[in-house]
């Protein structure tokens, strides 16, 4: 992979040059200590030291409410009129969120390709940025603390400059649009990168052992832990909404007042909602809250692993942050594993 450096002094002109590639979005402060990806006009607006945004990037590709077609009783179905081709540049994306999009790509591809997702995905450019973990991050355990693919450029902060990895051809075009702003990597930058990487490694406070977790979840299928968890959980679904990989959805029809036309909508949903597995006639496959919480854990940490070879969790810490009942996924998984001490052990720093 092509690696360059970009002096922070050149960040502003570089940012300006990106505008020709699409509408630029980046993390900005929203309220107190909260961040959100919003349209950004200048580099100085960006809050690049953010820890995590409220909503993950799925909001761009997998909108909370996505019309999938219009219908008309007389003329049938027409595609939803929407500009899926709008080019957008997402500036300052963390590795966990990049990896989450790679996971959503898996779900939305396969024999049935969801083009409401993919056309948008193909029209976005991603410029990643390095980050330092806080007390909620466990991305290292999930192997999502580093992005190997899924970005056009990736900027790693090494103090006065960024080490820039070029991930795609368009990434290269971005560099070539303003080639004078970039320098080749030198020994000093390389050393600074390694120092920063080592410093970051030492900062992870949370750890989950993933090896054989699916099997342990099988063994603990009837554990009373799920009942206890069901009593704590409020089934509010917040964790699903803010999860960067939760992709379950509902499909609903909206009829217009003329009683003839309307649209069908793909809408965010949560397996924690009571009617999620309720079928017509009233039978509910998961009427108990405990069984719904269990489903969420089983699907993300076990079923998804068997299906796609990895959990559908990137360790971003958002679910722990928003849970009104203070349910902490790391703690739950440690309890399932029967571990008492879930603080990081020295030997666990890098699996």
């Amino acid at each position, binding site marked *: 992979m092509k690696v360059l450096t970009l002096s922070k002094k050149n960040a502003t002109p570089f940012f300006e040059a990106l505008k020709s590639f699409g509408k630029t979005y980046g993390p900005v402060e929203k309220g107190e200590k909260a961040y959100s990806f919003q349209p950004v006009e200048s580099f100085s607006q960006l809050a690049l030291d953010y820890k995590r945004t409220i909503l993950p990037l799925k909001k761009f590709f997998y909108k909370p409410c996505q019309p*999938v*077609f219009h*219908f008309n*009783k007389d003329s*049938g*179905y027409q*595609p939803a009129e929407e500009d*899926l081709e709008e080019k957008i540049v997402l500036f300052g994306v963390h590795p966990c969120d990049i990896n989450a999009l790679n996971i959503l790509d898996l*779900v*939305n591809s*396969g*024999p*049935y*390709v*969801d*083009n*409401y997702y993919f*056309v948008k995905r193909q029209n976005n450019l991603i410029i990643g940025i390095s980050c330092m973990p806080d007390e909620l991050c466990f991305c290292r355990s999930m192997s999502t603390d580093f992005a190997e693919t899924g970005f056009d450029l990736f900027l790693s902060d090494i103090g006065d400059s960024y080490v820039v990895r070029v991930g795609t051809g368009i990434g290269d075009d971005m560099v070539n649009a303003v080639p004078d702003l970039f320098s080749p990597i030198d020994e000093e930058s390389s050393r600074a990168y390694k120092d920063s990487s080592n410093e970051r490694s030492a900062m992870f406070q949370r750890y989950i052992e993933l090896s054989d977790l699916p099997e342990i979840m099988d063994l603990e299928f009837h554990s009373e832990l799920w009942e206890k968890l069901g009593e704590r959980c409020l089934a509010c679904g917040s964790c699903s909404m803010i999860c960067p990989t939760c*992709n*379950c*959805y*509902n*499909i*609903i*029809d909206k*009829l217009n007042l003329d*009683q*003839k036309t*309307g649209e*069908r909508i*793909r809408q965010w*949903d949560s*397996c924690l909602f009571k009617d*999620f*597995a*309720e*079928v*017509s*006639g*009233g039978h509910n*496959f998961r009427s108990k809250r405990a069984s719904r919480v269990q*489903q969420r854990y*089983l*699907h993300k940490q*076990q*079923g*998804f*692993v*068997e*299906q796609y070879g990895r959990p559908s969790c990137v360790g971003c810490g958002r679910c722990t942050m928003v849970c009104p009942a203070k349910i902490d996924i790391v703690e739950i998984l440690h309890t399932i594993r029967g571990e008492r001490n879930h603080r990081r052990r020295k030997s666990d720093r890098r699996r």
Partner: protein
Amino acid sequence: MTNIYTPYLAKIKKIIKETHDVKTFQLELVNPESKKKFNYQPGQFAEFSVFGVGESTFCLASTPTRPEVLECSVKKAGKVTSAIHELWEGDTVGIRGPYGNNFPVKQLKGKNLVFVGGGIGLAPLRSLINFVLDNRGDYGNICLVYGARTPGDLVYKKELEDWDKTPDFATHITVDKSAGNWKGTVGFVPVILGEVAPGAENAVAITCGPPIMIKFVVKELSELGFKAADIITTLEMKMKCGLGKCGRCNIGKVYVCKDGPVF
């Protein structure tokens, strides 16, 4: 852009009232192109759309060996199914599919087939039964044990009579509770299955019905000597997309819509 959510338009050719709450809809795809694309196998299902109300999942109760019509039998139970029951012949609806896997029609060749159905659960079995009857030479004897709550809840009554007259096809119809002038068998499906005791030798059992019935039928079948691998079931689960994405029908690593409904 291909849109996986857009249904084909279909016209309702005929509506058959099966019971007080079940109707069978004969559908014909409007566009000849979509007719060509809609190739299905027994056991697969489709998504049925009513304008402005929504979409529901139904198995295809017809057989591809009779390509004139697609048939879905719909039990009135909720919002969409109630709306479907209010449709008239000639109305236009949406159909998406076919989805899911199918009965292993090739592997079943040469086998005796034991069908065990309950209530509306006969619908997917009917697709395979008629498929087998249309390829009669390829399969062995057929035994059907079918039951419903009351005589009024039995579906496909005319066909049940025809099947009963078909050679090498033993039908055993039962009801949980007798009513009216019912002169037939009374008893739960698993019990009647035990009495009929179809041989497990070179046989495969295919069952569909309420979950509790399936549970006891499987138990009874294994007592009759059927190995787990020789019992096929088709499951129902909440579904929205039929594409393995919406997450509704997920159980463990399985999506009933994509990895099933036949297990």
